[in-house]
């Protein structure tokens, strides 16, 4: 395991590797975010390992994972598409965009495609209120999305 920040060291204790720094527990969220990015979810085994590494109970790790909506215990698609459903977006037709994605991906919002390529979700304000309807594709914010653009967005993502 790579240290998450420069302040961290990895030492061996009783044959086990442990991450040490002056506030080890406070690294939990960055560690979990890293797992989520690389694997698309945080498995039971990951939670156990991370708990051992930080010297806390796995239930504590589980309680943190389930609190945050960007962390998940179930495997998400390779690409996560989040459509903002805040009021500014709804006024500009975000539900039509959701339906276009649902149709193109043949899933409902909240689901993942069978080939695990795409997850479709609704989310709150993503700070693109002036460019509604807006979506978040993985880490990227895209504004002024029209239902007609959905096929191309998906096509481009498939090539990545």
């Amino acid at each position, binding site marked *: 395991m790579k240290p998450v920040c420069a302040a961290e060291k990895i030492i061996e204790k009783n044959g086990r590797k442990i991450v040490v720094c002056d506030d080890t527990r406070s690294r939990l969220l960055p560690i979990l975010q890293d797992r989520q990015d690389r694997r698309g979810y945080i498995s039971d085994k990951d939670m156990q390992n991370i708990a051992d590494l930080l010297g806390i109970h796995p239930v504590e790790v589980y309680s943190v994972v389930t609190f945050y909506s960007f962390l998940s215990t179930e495997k998400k698609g390779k690409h996560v598409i989040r459509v903002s459903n805040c009021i500014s977006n709804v006024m500009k037709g975000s539900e039509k965009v959701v339906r276009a994605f649902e149709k193109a991906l043949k899933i409902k919002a909240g689901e993942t495609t069978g080939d695990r390529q795409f997850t479709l979700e609704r989310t709150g304000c993503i*700070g693109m209120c*002036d460019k*509604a309807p807006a979506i978040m594709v993985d880490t990227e914010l895209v504004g002024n999305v029209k239902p007609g653009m959905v096929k191309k967005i998906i096509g481009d993502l498939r090539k990545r």
Partner: protein
Amino acid sequence: MPRRQGPVIFSGIERYAAFKKALEMDRSAVLGEVKDSNIRGRGGAGFPVGLKWGLAASVQAEKRFVVCNADEGEPGTFKDKLLLTEYPALVFEGMAIAGFAIGANKGFLYLRGEYRGLIPVLEKELSEIRKEGAFSKKDITGKKAFDFDIEIRLGSGAYVCGEETALIESLEGNRGEPRNRPPFPVNTGFLGYPTIVNNVETFAAVPHIILKGAGWFKSIGTEISSGSKLISVSGDCEKPGVYEVPFGITLREILKMTGAGDTKAVQVGGASGTCVPKREFSRKIAFEDLSTGGSVIIFSRKRNMLEAAENFLRFFEEESCGQCTPCREGVPVLLEGVEKLRKGECSGKYLDDLLSLAETMQCASKCGLGQSAPNAFVSIVEKFKNEYKLSKKRGKERVFNG
């Protein structure tokens, strides 16, 4: 950097000149200048900044921390995103000045997960700062006298983490559940050390205050609300976007500036804010009138205000951390109430019960989320009476069973 225009934040400034000036003043002089400027927090609650910093500075402690709240989750707000994209140096400089003033060597920027695309820009700025040693000072013998470093931490999609004690919990690696206050973060914050949490825009204003003086700052805005405010305008208008306006500007002026026509309502302050009808468009953006983190959502005549109230309550239902009863149980009841109102199934008695529940939530919820969740609902129900019809049937149902 695009040349934006504005009275404070978007007025020109030389990079890091304010930090250099602060180092030449002493700590108490920097604190004094911030206090004198009367600047209040730009994140929504409007707590006096100088007072907060002074409290943190006066506590005996080994370490202190500066936290920049870049969680920007309030629906309709996107001005912090603009600042971090176009003016990252200004925000970091404000944090370093705060660090110098309170005696902190470490700062965190807590960035909402939705904005992680900004990380490369921010990291690039930070590495330049480190390379130049811009935020460190050596004394006459060449020893380090002050040093400040900033670490970026990402949120993970929880609105409540914008509440400062929840943010600190999240930084510590916990669920983002708000703490009881007091004790306040200025006494027991991150890892139990004195911590100041301020909004991105608050930090961005500080270098201007240090360089141009408290008097200059106070000459902008109103008597009570000095300086300017960034507003994020969205909804039914021709020119949505971020505008820097002096405090005291009226809604009517904002509508004109952004090319909004045929407006029936303006939601000020996002989902936790209040809905203002046309007859009140001479009201002002200011702490003494419409206090806001900057969200301005415009509704034209064709919009249904109950739909807006429902959207906001759905948002709170999703985002409530569930820790305390008034918020966890109250929000779904209000949501059901709006649905009934929209269907014309809500009696006058039932509505009265809902309003009294709203009042309970406003005073009994543990944090600002639950305390302000009913605001939009209450203002819409009270000020847009012509948008719904109460059921004539005496409602048998009651809001509470018991």
